[in-house]
């Protein structure tokens, strides 16, 4: 059993490193993955008798490298195999497991390259850096497994055919390219976060893996404020994840969460990381989002939420070209900041320009936000309609039940003049 556990630990720590190392010169990610999985099989056969090697990574790398060369020879396409073998020989000089820069960062930049479709970047990272299988990734992103496999295969072909480089871009390009890497990591985290009850063990793992990738990038690029910002954002969100459900599994909105149920050491770590980021004087989207979460977290000390600060941060996010979700959250902040029915009316006015967005037909957060604001202005009938829309678009049963309870509350107020 110890062998299996060691193999698993090495797999988690080393998978991406070894794939990156094996594929860096050839750009053949799929070939590297095949060779590596054969090496893991060999390890599980050999280690129980021969004992766990002193340098498991180096052992796996040596075996995988041999498998790669065998595969290249086997193909017997001389013109193709010879240069590939030469590349392998160059790229795979003895590796002591340390001393060289961690190649996983280069692999992540290859996965989030502009030539790779944005939607497949996070799945590709999960597969190549962490060794997730296509079926698990498909479930997490709500995509048909066959479709996901196809997309991953196509992306790897693209890396190979276009010769997408395994490198960290030069300083001038770094910010833009890094954003794509961070987006993909955040998408990984979000896919895990979307299962708040943690009922699905595999997706719960995904949130943790997102944070793990975030830590990796932040540790390899400690001068990049946005990498730190993303890590702070994920840590803040993670600190509150368990608090989103009560003991009976009911959904608990942020405003009603007991700060004592938050993971306070994780909040503290998030604050520290965000502070370090702020000292680099390079603000950006992820730092602003993390700062919003930081203000929410401060409620545990202040006893109230500083909505003026949150509104200011959302203004900043909107100025950076914020998305639909930013605009919706800003409208809610407007309402909370001003308070009461008058604030809710101002929030509704802030939502108004979004009404023409075609995505709204399937976008639950808009309808949930609109419903809550309508209810507070006393427009109960319209609130009911918006709640029904949100309920119909919600996939999480616990959130659906919460929205249904709110809908019932709105329905009890019934049509009629606004309540005082």
């Amino acid at each position, binding site marked *: 059993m110890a062998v299996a556990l060691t193999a698993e630990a090495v797999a988690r720590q080393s998978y991406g490193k070894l794939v990156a190392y094996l594929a860096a010169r050839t750009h053949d990610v799929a070939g590297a993955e095949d060779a590596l999985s054969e090496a893991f099989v060999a390890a599980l056969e050999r280690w129980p008798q021969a004992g766990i090697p002193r340098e498991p990574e180096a052992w796996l790398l040596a075996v995988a490298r041999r498998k790669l060369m065998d595969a290249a020879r086997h193909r017997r396409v001389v013109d193709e195999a010879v240069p590939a073998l030469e590349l392998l020989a160059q790229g795979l000089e003895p590796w002591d497991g340390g001393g060289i820069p961690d190649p996983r960062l280069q692999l992540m930049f290859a996965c989030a390259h502009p030539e790779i479709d944005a939607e497949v970047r996070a799945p590709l990272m999960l597969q190549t850096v962490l060794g997730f299988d296509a079926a698990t990734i498909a479930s997490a992103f709500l995509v*048909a497994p066959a479709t996901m496999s196809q997309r991953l295969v196509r992306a790897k072909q693209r890396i190979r055919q276009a010769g997408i480089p395994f490198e960290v871009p030069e300083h001038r390009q770094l910010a833009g390219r890094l954003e794509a890497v961070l987006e993909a990591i955040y998408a990984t985290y979000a896919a895990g976060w979307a299962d708040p009850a943690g009922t699905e063990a595999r997706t719960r793992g995904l949130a943790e893996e997102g944070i793990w990738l975030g830590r990796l990038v932040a540790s390899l690029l400690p001068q990049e404020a946005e990498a730190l910002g993303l890590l702070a954002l994920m840590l803040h969100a993670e600190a509150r994840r368990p608090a989103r459900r009560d003991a009976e599994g009911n959904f608990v909105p942020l405003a009603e969460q007991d700060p004592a149920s938050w993971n306070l050491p994780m909040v503290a770590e998030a604050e520290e990381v965000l502070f370090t980021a702020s000292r680099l004087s390079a603000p950006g989207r992820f730092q602003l989002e993390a700062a919003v979460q930081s203000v929410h977290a401060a409620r545990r000390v202040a006893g109230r939420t500083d909505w003026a600060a949150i509104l200011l941060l959302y203004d900043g996010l909107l100025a950076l070209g914020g998305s639909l979700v930013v605009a919706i959250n800003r409208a809610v902040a407007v309402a909370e900041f001003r308070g009461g029915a008058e604030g809710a009316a101002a929030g509704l006015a802030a939502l108004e320009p979004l009404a023409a967005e075609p995505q709204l037909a399937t976008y639950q957060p808009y309808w949930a936000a609109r419903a809550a604001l309508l209810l507070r202005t006393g427009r109960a009938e319209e609130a009911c309609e918006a709640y029904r829309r949100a309920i*119909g678009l919600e996939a999480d049963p616990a959130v659906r039940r919460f929205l249904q309870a709110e809908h019932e509350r709105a329905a009890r107020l019934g049509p009629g003049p606004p309540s005082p």
Partner: protein
Amino acid sequence: MMPAKSDDEDDSMKFLLLNYVDYAERSKVSQEENGRLYAAYQAYLEALTKAGVLLSNHGLRPTSEAVTVRMRGGQQTVVNGPFAETKEQLGGYFLIEVDDIDAALAWAARCPGAEYGAMEVRPVWQ
């Protein structure tokens, strides 16, 4: 019922979302929860309709009322019950028209029926 949008007639695809229900599981649900579930289905239908993707839908009466007909070598047999006794039985369907299978899966996940059984997503020949 609103007709499905057809801005992009050539690119859209039809999918049948089959709602398989675990009736043993469903029968344990309290009356109050049943009412909530019914309301959730109504909201789901409304969301499908207002998004302009719903072509048709029906809920089916229980399989105890089903009758199965077969023709084998010119011999007809008629039996009471569904064609196969399985834990989950077809309880209803939604025929939708969306851009791709990703969108179809998203709608399947939103169906309240996904909580008490399974949603099978089937592309339609076209």
